[in-house]
């Protein structure tokens, strides 16, 4: 009789990870099974699908839900009650819930949080990293573009005489632009081949912090490389165009 009562008190619903952890062959066979915990012997009365109990940083682990059958048990053990409500009526809902809570558990203070805010808190670090990396990416691109513009300007100035000679010999504007941009496009290509493995290593290390994470697609690298190539093309073309427009006579005259 004692055992029966105890069993009745210790009904458990477990998740699929727990079924696997216990080494039971499937969910169906787990029902009715007994296991020992610090509270004594427990009996499985149901199995539910796995869900994330904690943040996505950690794996879905074995999980046991403690089922309470009696009113007094519920009143005694319940610390939190989850309520789903329609959006836009928080004030009325809170007032209603407070009233109900005071009637349900008069010895406990009424406290509440919102689930979406709690979930947000789990990822606040990632939010900060996201904002910070956005700013840093912008600054990096800005510095790279300024550096590229400086380098292109320097090289174009160094090659003003050569451009003048080529123009004198009949090179068209597009010939000149092709020569200057061609050289820089090679540099961009080499830079990308160095940057891609480095970015892959850093990103895959970072993603390892998450039990569940996105996969890295090749097109992301291709896209970033293409953006760099387009920026280079625009900057070099503008500079090459400006130098090419100089009168070849005036460029060579004062040598």
């Amino acid at each position, binding site marked *: 009789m004692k055992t029966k009562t105890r069993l009745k008190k210790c009904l458990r619903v477990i998740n699929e990870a727990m079924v696997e952890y216990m080494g039971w062959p499937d969910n169906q066979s787990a029902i009715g099974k007994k296991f020992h915990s610090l509270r004594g012997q427990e009996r499985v009365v149901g199995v539910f699908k796995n869900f994330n109990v904690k943040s996505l940083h950690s794996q879905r682990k074995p999980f046991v839900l403690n089922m309470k059958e009696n009113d007094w048990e519920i009143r005694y053990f319940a610390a939190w009650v989850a309520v789903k409500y329609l959006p836009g009526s928080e004030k009325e809902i809170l007032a209603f819930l407070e009233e109900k809570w005071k009637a349900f558990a008069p010895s406990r203070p009424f406290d509440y949080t919102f689930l979406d805010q709690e979930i947000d808190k789990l990822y606040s670090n990632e939010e900060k990293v996201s904002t910070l990396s956005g700013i840093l990416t912008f600054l990096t691109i800005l510095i790279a573009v300024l550096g590229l513009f400086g380098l292109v300007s320097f090289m174009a100035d160094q090659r003003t*005489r*050569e451009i*003048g*000679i*080529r*123009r*004198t*010999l*009949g*090179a*068209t*504007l597009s*010939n000149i632009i092709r020569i200057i941009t061609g050289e820089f496009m090679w540099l961009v290509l080499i830079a990308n081949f160095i940057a891609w493995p480095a970015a892959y290593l850093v990103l895959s290390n970072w993603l390892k912090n998450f039990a569940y994470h996105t996969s890295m697609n090749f097109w992301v690298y291709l896209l970033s490389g293409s953006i760099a190539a387009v920026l280079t093309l625009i900057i070099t073309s503008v500079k090459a165009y400006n130098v090419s*427009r100089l*009168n*070849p*006579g*005036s460029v*060579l*005259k004062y*040598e």
Partner: protein
Amino acid sequence: MIQTNKLTKVFRTDEVETTALNEVSFGVDEGEFVAVMGPSGCGKSTLLNLLGLLDNPTTGEYYFMEEKVSNLREKQRAKKRKSNIGFVFQNFNLIDELTVFENVELPLIYLGIKGSERKKRVDDVLEQMGMLHRRKHYPLQLSGGQQQRTAVARAIVARPKLILADEPTGNLDSAHGEEVMNLLDQLNQNGTTIVMVTHSPSDAEYARRTINLFDGQIVTENIKQAL
């Protein structure tokens, strides 16, 4: 071949206005060798730039091969320039990063001539200039005379009707200078028209006619009498 009518070139900056050429009118016939002389700053190089379609005049008219070219846009000037005019500069203006062969090949590339034909023509002209054995050398590995012979090879490889030479012996010793002048003389005897700017009276001796410029104007014109 060349006819100018009141050709004027004015250079303007924010504060200064300089008239480099002032209503210059003269003509050059096909096959002529003309020297342009005068003190520094008299407008010789400006005249050569205008004749070479490297720049447009401020006012006046320029007829090249019986076509008015004084107001052409740069693209049209480049087209005329690359197929009709060869340039020889005082400081050679070779591209240091390219070999002798590649330097001489440039005008043919811009004319759109095919690779095999280019190779043949470049080798021919380098042989003519006695530079074939140096085809793989870079300009900085050559003497001044060799550099100028390369520049002359580049000027004639596209078989231009007109060669414009700006002080072609200015950076050379007398032996190399004479060598280059003999080359130009030979080209002229083969029918190429040459207009040469020079300070050197001995170089001007090679020309059949000498035009003297002073303060942007033609002051005298001497025609060499046949011996």
